């Protein structure tokens, strides 16, 4: 929906995921959207270099979230939030309704 504005589909999915879940990591985005891991990592690094996202290493996983110091953060998040509101219901259910609250280890879904 805003891929043309952002320049590519991978970046759109990354930013919408961070808006929805508060953070993301490359492998998860790659699996969820069936995108190449390399393409996702490239976009994440680009966003980190431009100051939109910041990252932290948890064990071996690099977690990305919005940079609270990014000057246009409020405006960017408003755009992403609006986009999530108007995305087709099917797309929301498939990609943006994943469970993020904890679940005890080994408890079946």
């Amino acid at each position: 929906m805003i891929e043309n504005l952002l320049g590519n589909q991978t970046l759109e999915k990354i930013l919408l995921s961070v808006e929805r879940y508060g953070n993301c990591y490359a492998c998860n985005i790659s699996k969820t959207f069936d995108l190449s891991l390399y393409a996702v990592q490239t976009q994440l690094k680009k966003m980190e270099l431009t100051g939109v996202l910041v990252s932290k290493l948890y064990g071996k996983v690099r977690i990305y979230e919005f940079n609270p110091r990014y000057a246009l953060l409020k405006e960017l998040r408003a755009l992403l939030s609006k986009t999530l509101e108007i995305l087709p219901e099917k797309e929301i259910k498939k990609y943006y309704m994943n469970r993020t609250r904890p679940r005890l280890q080994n408890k079946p879904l």
Partner: protein
Amino acid sequence: MKIDFSKLNIKDLANVICDILLKNNIDVVLVGGACVSIYSKNKYMSYDLDFVTDKTLKELESVLNTIGFKRTGRLFKNDKCDYLIDFVSHPVMIGKEYTKDFEEMKTKYGLLKLLKPADCLKDRLAGYFYWNDPQSLEQAIMIYNKQKNKINLKEIENWSKKENNIEKYNIFIKKIIL
């Protein structure tokens, strides 16, 4: 009473489990997704029943075995029904708040103790507040839509302030007004 476990819905099953445990002096309270199923009138479907208790699994096992529920690790399962029974540690916490005030429902299967509708809604909002979980927000909306007359939004707002999450509470309000 002879019970056919394959035909019980989640509320009736919770009722059977709760009642037999209470009758054996084991205090339990139903929490989690099963309460959401009950209060959302099955708009949300949970397949596990989480009870809070301060008793040991061994104590629970001796009672639940009598109605055909076998223990695997922490979970109990009866071959004739799809639901899993789990016991989570005491006490019942709603976000950072501790509660002792529960809803009690009496049916043909006996007594069921569970979270109050407002606490069930707060519990889901807490999932959204602390883990950004979109499913929790959706479930909170489902509960509100079916339990409006039992939920005081001012109370939810005050609780959200105490949880330092008034901004996310406002998103919830925006969604229930839409």
